[in-house]
Structure formats: C-alpha cells, structure tokens
C-alpha cells in the first residue's frame, strides 16, 4: 500500500464519522428524523466500506510492507533540535485494521439497530451525533501513531461515553452514572499521560553513539530525533529503557492502569455496571464491543514494552484473571438484564487482559473480535426484550418470552452459547487463550485453574439469564403481552447471531486446533519487535486436552444453568440457606461490596475532609479576606469624602494640587528658599 493511498483511506475513515457527527448535530434538528437516520448510518457505512478497502490492501500487500505510517501534517515542533515534535500521524497495520473492522462493522449494525430503537426518542439527532463522534474518536485512538494523538483519542472516547451514558439527562441516575464513569476514566487518563511523559523522556532513539545526559543530548547537536513521541519509534527502541528495569516496570504499570480504567478492570471496574443507564445500543457499542476493549488494544499496541517488563505483565495477567472470576461471580445474582451482561463483559475482558498479560496478544485480539460479535448480539437482543416489555429491565418481571419473541430468543441463545464457550464463537477464543496460558505463561497453572472456574461461572450466569428471561411462565403483565421487535431491530441481531455462530469455525478452518487465522494475520505485528510468534506450542496433544477440559467445564456450567433455571429440575436455594454458605450469594448480590467500600474509604473521607476544611478554613479565610478588605475600606474612607460630586470641589482640588505642584517644582529648582 503506497503512502498516498494509505493517507487517503485513513483520512476518509476518520473524516466520514466526524462529518456524520457534524451533520446530525448541526442540521439534524432542522432537517428531521429521516435525515438524521440516513446521515448517521450512511457515514458509518462509508467508513466500513473504506475499512474493507484498507483490509484488502493490507491482505494484498507484500509481507513486510503491510504496516504503513502516514504523517498528515506536523502539528507542533519546538526548536530546531526537534526535541518535542508532534506529528498528526496514523498507522495502518494488521492490529489497527482488525480493530477498525470491528469498530465500523459492528458499529454499522448497531447504528442500523439504533434507527429502530430511538424511533420514539426526541433526541435522535443528538444521539446519532454522539454515536458518530464516538466512532471517530475510537478510530482516532486505534490509528494513532503518536502518543499525543493516542491520548486525544483516548480522552475523546471517554467524553463520548460520558455523553452517551448521560444521554437521558433528565434521569438523575444516568447523570450520576455518567459522572462516575468519567471520574474513573480520568484516573486512567492521568496514568496514561504520566506513562507518555516517561516514555518521551526516557526512550532514546540514537542510543549507541549518545549515552543520556551527555553533550550530544543537547538540542541541535543531533539532527535525528533523540526524543520521540512516535509510537512505532518507541516500540522499535523500547530496549533503550532496559529490559526488566524498574523504569519500564513503572511505565508498563501506568499504561496498565490506563487500560484497567478504560476496560473496567479491578479496582477501577465499578463504573461499567452503572454505565448501563445509557440507551441499549450505547451499551452494545461502547460498553461491550469497542471502547471497553481499548485497554486490551493499548497493551497489545505497546507489546514491545510489556515483553520486556515481566513483572508488570504478570500483574496485568493476574488482575485480568481476578476481574474475570470476580465479575463472573457477581453476574450470578444480578437482577437487571443489562447489568448481568455488563458483568459478563467485564469478565470476558478480564480474560482478554489476562491473554495480553501473558503475551498471548493474538489470542487476546481473537477473543476481542469474537466477543464483539456475541456481546453486541446479547445487548441488542436484550434491547429488543426491554423494548418489548416496556422498558422493564428486571428479569424477575420477565419470563416466558421464548414463544413470544422467537427470533430474538434464538439469537440470544446463540449469543449465550457463544459466551459460555460451547459450539460457537467463545469456544475457540477462550480455549485458545487459556491453552496458551497453560503452556507458555510463567506460573500460570494456578491462573489456568481460575480460568476453568470462570468457564463454569460463565455457563451458569449465561443460562440463568436465558432461563429467567425467556423460559417458564411470564411473571408480569408486560411480559405476557410482549411482541417481537420491528425488522430494523431484528436484522442486526440476526446478522450478529450468524457471525457469532460461524466466525469461530471459519477462522479456525485451515488447521483444526492449530494456529487460527487471526494469529497468522497478526503475527507480523507482534514479531517485528523481537517477541516470539504467538502460535500455539507444538505440543498439540496438550492443546487438544486443554481444549477438551475447557469445553467440558463450560458444559458443566451450562448444564447446571439449564437444569436450575430452565428445566427447574434443581433448586439451589436450600443449599444456599445453610449457615456459612448463606454469605456467598449475599456477597455476590452486593457486588462484593465494592461500591460500599469505595464509598467508605474514598467518598466519605473526602467529603468529611472537605467539610472539615470548610469548618476550620472558612473562618480563617473569612478573617483574612475581611481583614484585607477592611484595611482597604478604612483607608479609602478618608478619601471617599473627597468625592462629593460637586464640580466646584473637584475644581478646587485641581487648583490646590496645581499650585502645590508648582511650588514644589520651584522649591526643587531652588527658586524659593
């Protein structure tokens, strides 16, 4: 792919959603709903078409020429030594195009769905404007070839997430949730910015001839960029940070904190369930398929750093797996259909984070791709359900929808199976990354066992959700009169169900249980920096055994789920009523008390501190300020009387001072003794 072609394509895929956002936002309220629906979806369709062209170009390019970095213009250049040089530049490579395919492809389906979902909403122009802007920011984030551009995209997706969670701003809970998401994201933003500073200060692009802090480090001595903000350069020269040094560990931990905040990982995960206050298409697009996986992308993008920071990478893997099991545990007892899916998202992203933490980058991205399909599917199908039962989200008020919404129910079942990891999408990606963890990760047998437990939990909560929502007798009037959604909301769901069903099989096609196509496709990205190819180890037998164990555990979970909540052949209630065991469901129901813990350790102390400072500080500050103003006021009281408003008074002051000045000059000149 030539640079000019790449520049054109990247420019188009960036500008189309931005244009759509501007059109919907500025002209939408004037030109009406039809125009907004058309402009909002066509812009994303255009972006998806361009993405397909990029994908074809990369597939067609000779090996070694698949990654192209385009500089649009030089944004900021301080000094001739170009110490600080910010280019507006983008990278098109296999990793970014895979992200682009999901962002614009799944994004397009969700935009089409939104046409139906937002049919009766007044703010449809605002909605599509925000959604298009989100696609633009997300594209900017994954294409960025420069730390500053990356940070801009990173912050812009947080902004669009904030705007869309709080879309129904007349609901207090939505506004509070939006604020919570924003504040948590800011923690990650700060960590990411500090990491960027450290990278800028410490990555040396000309190390052999110039040790740090020597004369040649002065600006202008070396024409090459000694310091750099360019991501490809940072990755190439990552070794100048020193493998395993405290510095690179610190940088990687900061990057990981950024990723955790964005991807709702422990301990920055509490915002994601609350983010379900937004419209359901938003949950599907931002809080399942794309934005929350940006953390996975970030770590995969900076793989060259994590490769040489084993401590940080190990921490990432542990946090990922910890979040996976924690979220799976909480998902078991939640009663809000969207919150269950939100916790399952958190859990699945935990697995992705685990994968990139142990160096299985391609496996992580594989899981990202398939997860985007089945999770968007689950959310959109849940949206149909919520629509059908008149905006009720509590699964205790549902039930029996299977016969009333056949297409949605079957799609949801496909999604649940894919999520649980049996037959469909999730089976391949999850067993892939777990198997890799067992074979290649350091000290991972323990984590592998946790992963197996996550599989069981996933099957359980997925089929609890399906059973309670779709089977049995309807438990409310609204559920009894539920109707299937209109076709504009069914087609995206059906397409996503098809993708979830076949994508795993197709990508696995050429060599059963061998390296999948995503691995083959992405391996140039992850090998260029010297880290090993992310293929399954040659021990195929163990791979198969691992596969069997994983699927078996999923089946156990699914089986229990089906028996308890669908067939109702088992009732776990007596077991959990036993003393000692009773605590377990209670912990799960209260989300392990994280909100309460944060409330008591962070929110309340801060409030108390603010209150205390106010109590102590207010009188002090008041006395200072009143003192200052008192002095000024007393001082001016003397002169205030001079301003009488009478012209004759003013004239006499003028005369007096004119005479006084003259006399003073005469005295100074010695004319008057």
């Amino acid at each position, binding site marked *: 792919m030539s640079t000019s072609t790449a520049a054109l394509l990247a420019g188009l895929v960036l500008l189309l959603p931005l244009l759509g956002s501007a059109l919907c936002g500025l002209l939408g309220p004037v030109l009406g709903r039809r125009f907004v629906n058309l402009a909002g979806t066509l812009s994303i369709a255009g972006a998806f078409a361009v993405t397909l062209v990029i994908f074809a170009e990369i597939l067609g390019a000779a090996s070694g020429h698949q990654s192209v970095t385009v500089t649009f213009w030089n944004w900021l250049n301080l000094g001739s030594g170009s110490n600080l040089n910010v280019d507006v530049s983008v990278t098109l490579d296999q990793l970014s195009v895979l992200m682009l395919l999901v962002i614009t492809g799944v994004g397009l389906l969700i935009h089409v769905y939104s046409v139906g979902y937002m049919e009766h909403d007044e703010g449809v122009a605002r909605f599509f404007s925000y959604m298009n802007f989100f696609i633009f920011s997300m594209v900017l984030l994954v294409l960025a070839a420069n730390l500053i551009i990356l940070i801009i995209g990173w912050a812009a997706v947080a902004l669009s997430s904030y705007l869309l969670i709080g879309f129904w701003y007349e609901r207090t809970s939505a506004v509070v949730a939006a604020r919570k998401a924003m504040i948590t994201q800011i923690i990650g933003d700060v960590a990411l910015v500090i990491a960027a500073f450290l990278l800028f200060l410490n990555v040396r692009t000309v190390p052999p001839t110039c040790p740090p802090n020597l004369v040649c480090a002065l600006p202008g001595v070396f024409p090459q960029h000694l310091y750099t903000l360019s991501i490809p350069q940072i990755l190439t020269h990552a070794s100048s940070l020193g493998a395993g040094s405290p510095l690179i560990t610190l940088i990687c931990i900061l990057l990981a904190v950024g990723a955790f905040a964005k991807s709702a990982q422990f301990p920055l995960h509490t915002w994601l369930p609350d983010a379900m206050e937004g419209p359901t298409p938003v949950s599907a697009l931002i809080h399942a398929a794309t934005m929350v996986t940006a953390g996975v992308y970030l770590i995969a993008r900076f793989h060259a750093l994590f490769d040489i920071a084993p401590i940080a990478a190990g921490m990432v893997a542990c946090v990922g797996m910890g979040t996976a099991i924690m979220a799976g545990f909480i998902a078991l007892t939640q009663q809000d259909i969207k919150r269950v899916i939100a916790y399952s998202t958190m859990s699945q992203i935990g697995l992705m984070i685990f994968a990139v933490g142990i160096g299985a980058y391609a496996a992580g991205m594989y899981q990202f791709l398939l997860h985007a399909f089945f999770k968007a599917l689950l959310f959109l199908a849940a949206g149909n359900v919520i629509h059908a039962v008149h905006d009720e989200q509590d699964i205790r008020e549902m039930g029996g929808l299977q016969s009333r919404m056949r297409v949605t129910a079957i799609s949801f079942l496909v999604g649940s199976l894919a999520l649980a990891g049996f037959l469909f999408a999730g089976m391949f990606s999850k067993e892939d990354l777990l198997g890799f963890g067992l074979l290649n990760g350091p000290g991972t047998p323990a984590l592998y066992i946790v992963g197996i437990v996550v599989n069981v939990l996933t099957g359980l909560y997925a089929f609890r959700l399906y059973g309670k929502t779709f089977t049995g007798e309807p438990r409310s009037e609204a559920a009894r009169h539920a109707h299937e959604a209109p076709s504009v909301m069914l087609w995206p769901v059906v397409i996503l169900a098809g993708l979830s069903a076949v994508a795993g099989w197709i990508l696995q096609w050429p060599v059963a249980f061998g390296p999948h196509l995503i691995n083959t496709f992405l391996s140039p990205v992850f090998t260029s920096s010297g880290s090993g190819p992310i293929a399954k180890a040659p021990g195929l037998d163990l791979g198969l055994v691992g596969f069997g164990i994983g699927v078996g555990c999923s089946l156990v979970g699914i089986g229990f789920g089906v028996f308890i909540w669908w067939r109702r052949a088992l009732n776990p209630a007596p077991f959990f009523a036993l003393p000692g065991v009773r605590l377990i469901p209670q912990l799960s129901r209260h989300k392990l008390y994280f909100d309460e813990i944060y409330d008591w350790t962070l929110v309340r102390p801060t409030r108390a501190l603010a209150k205390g400072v106010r109590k102590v500080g207010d009188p002090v500050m008041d006395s200072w300020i009143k003192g200052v103003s008192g002095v000024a006021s007393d001082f001016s009281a003397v002169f205030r009387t001079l*301003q*009488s*408003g*009478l*012209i*004759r008074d003013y*004239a*006499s002051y003028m*005369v007096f001072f004119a005479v006084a000045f003259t006399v003073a000059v005469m005295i100074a000149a010695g004319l008057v003794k």
Partner: protein
Amino acid sequence: MLSQAMFPWILLTAAYLFSLGALGVLIRRNPLVVFMSIELMLNAVNLALVGYSSFLSSEEGQVFAFMVIVVAAAEVVVGLGLLTRVFSIGRELDVDDLDELKR
C-alpha cells in the same frame, strides 16, 4: 515690538487674570459665569504664551495660542449645549445642584 522690560509685567498680568478666573470657577455657582471664568483662564494662558513668544522671538507660542482659541471654542460649544439641555429639562442652573457625578 514690546520692550524686554515689560515681559515680567505681562506674566504678572497673565497670572493675575488666571487666578481671577480660577477664583471665579471655584466660588461662582452659575454655570454661565463659570464658563466665562474658564474663558478668562484660557485667555490668561494665551497672554502668557504670546508674551513668551515675543520674549523669545519665536512664533511657536503664537501658534499655541491659536490652538487654545480653537479648543476653547469647541469646549464652549459642547458646554453650552449641555447647559441648554439641563435648562430644558427644567433643572435649576446651579453647579452645586448638578452633583450626579457622585451617583
């Protein structure tokens, strides 16, 4: 051509007229009289300028005197315009009564 010996007397006359004008501005309450007093002050200054011009054999002082006359004329136009407005809204013509500047 005035004799050099007369120069101090010219300055003294100018100073006398200026003080007279200033006193008039300060103690009279009728704005018209105040205006006349201001004119007196300006003309005192003109006299001093012309006197210096003669004493120093330079035309610049006289040019300045003309400038002062022009400015004085403009000021009278504005001032009398203000006075007629004040009078037309039924206010008493008394400078002590016109103290709105304070408010």
